[in-house]
């Protein structure tokens, strides 16, 4: 097995305890939200005395609607842990480098003295981020059918609006954001995500290379990248006059090209910094 796989494995194992912790938090919190949503709805249903007659049931449904899992999926305790996971993964982009520098032992010495190109280390860290994000997503996907099943068991069938996992992803909620149901969209979404990761890595390496000055360079770099992405919009509104506009496909291909440039530049820049500037 080559050193890249070994490093990815190593990084994944380092994250593993936190990962398991996250999974448990997500599962518990979401199951709690399930019961909360159900009991709140049932409270209203019982207040309306829905079970007294067919008519009462109908009246209640027409005023309050059926109870669907979508309502659970919008509950704070359901979305909360997902947001926490997203925030934590963003944070982990930084942690994955800084934890090697700080702390009781300076592992960065060992990492930088491995008989492997530093880009292997760089890519293994990026890969770890991607794997962890996708696996959290996968876990949610495994959890959802179970949650939906439990939910549909505990809600009286006459008040239940049935829904499948797929239906959930067709609705507008947090899931359409984190997992587009169209495969190509999914690929592009996560390509953009990785562009962000590489940009942040460059930021971190700039800081590690030039310290305080590096933070300023890093901020300038991030601004430059944001500026680069705005080029099509800039061209559209300032360069060719007010009544010029791009076709959406043109904008898309321009942005795709810019993203390729950004990822390439970020990687090459990081490579330069890792080779020539970064210090333990």
């Amino acid at each position, binding site marked *: 097995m080559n050193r890249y796989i070994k490093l990815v494995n190593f990084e994944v194992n380092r994250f593993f305890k936190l990962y398991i912790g996250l999974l448990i938090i997500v599962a518990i919190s979401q199951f709690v939200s399930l019961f909360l949503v159900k009991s709140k709805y049932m409270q209203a249903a019982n207040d309306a005395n829905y079970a007294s007659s067919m008519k009462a049931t109908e009246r209640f449904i027409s005023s309050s609607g059926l109870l669907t899992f979508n309502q659970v999926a919008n509950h704070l305790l359901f979305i909360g842990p997902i947001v926490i996971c997203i925030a934590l993964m963003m944070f982990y982009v930084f942690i994955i480098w800084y934890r090697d520098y700080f702390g009781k032992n300076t*592992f960065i*010495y060992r990492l930088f003295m491995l008989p492997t190109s530093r880009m292997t280390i760089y890519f293994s860290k990026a890969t770890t981020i991607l794997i962890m994000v996708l696996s959290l997503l996968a876990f949610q996907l495994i959890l959802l059918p179970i949650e939906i099943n439990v939910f549909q068991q505990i809600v009286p069938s006459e008040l239940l609006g049935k829904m499948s996992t797929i239906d959930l992803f067709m609705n507008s909620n947090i899931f359409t954001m984190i997992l587009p149901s169209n495969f190509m969209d999914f690929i592009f979404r996560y390509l953009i995500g990785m562009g962000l990761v590489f940009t942040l890595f460059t930021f971190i390496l700039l800081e590690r290379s030039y310290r305080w000055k590096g933070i300023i360079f890093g901020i300038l770099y991030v601004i430059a990248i944001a500026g680069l992405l705005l080029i099509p919009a800039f061209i559209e509104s300032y360069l060719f006059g007010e009544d010029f506009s791009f076709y959406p496909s043109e904008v898309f291909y321009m942005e795709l090209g810019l993203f390729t440039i950004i990822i390439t530049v970020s990687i090459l820049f990081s490579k330069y910094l890792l080779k020539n500037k970064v210090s333990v």
Partner: protein
Amino acid sequence: MIQVKNVSKKYGRKNVLRDISFTANKGEITCLIGINGVGKSTTMKAIMGITPIDCGEILIDDKKMNHTMYENITFIPDTLTMLPSFTVGEAMQFMKDFYVNWNPERAKELLGFFRLKEDEKLGELSKGNAAKANLLFGLGLDVDYVLMDEPFSGIDMFSREQIAKVFTSHLIEDRGVIITTHEISDIEHLIDKVVLLDNGEILKEFYTEEIRLEEGKSVMDVMREVYQS
């Protein structure tokens, strides 16, 4: 042979290394001594290519440093380079995973020599044992050059004695060793060569036996002369 040629480095406005040059041969123990300043560790890191230098050149067996050479030269800093959550055994496995030149037999021997246990967590080791574990991870590699940063500082007398024994033993073999220290007395008669550093400059470079033979001076005498003049 490790050649350091006209190397300079600044941290911000501070000159950490000013045009330093020296050589360290294979089969010899070269000691970088400095009482002031931070130049010693920086020199080590510069040789290892883990800190950039502003100008100058460093050659190891006439080649510039690149990542494949970490199989041939190793650095033992004064902190542990492994995760504190690792046990000694896991750290040894890590070394085995990543280095072709890891020598498990010698690592076993070192384990016995330092009286360390494989199932001990690195984060829970005493300072002396941590230093020994650190040496273990460095010396377990079949490398030509070993760089050690302050192997004796901050640890107890008995551990110091044990570590000093490494230098006379076959564990060093014919390797080239560079060690830094600010305290020479423990190892004065163990080293071949001395490079005296002060505030990022090299004041003197000499062989210990030559200075004794030609001038009848101990290393301490020379240091007194150099630093107090």
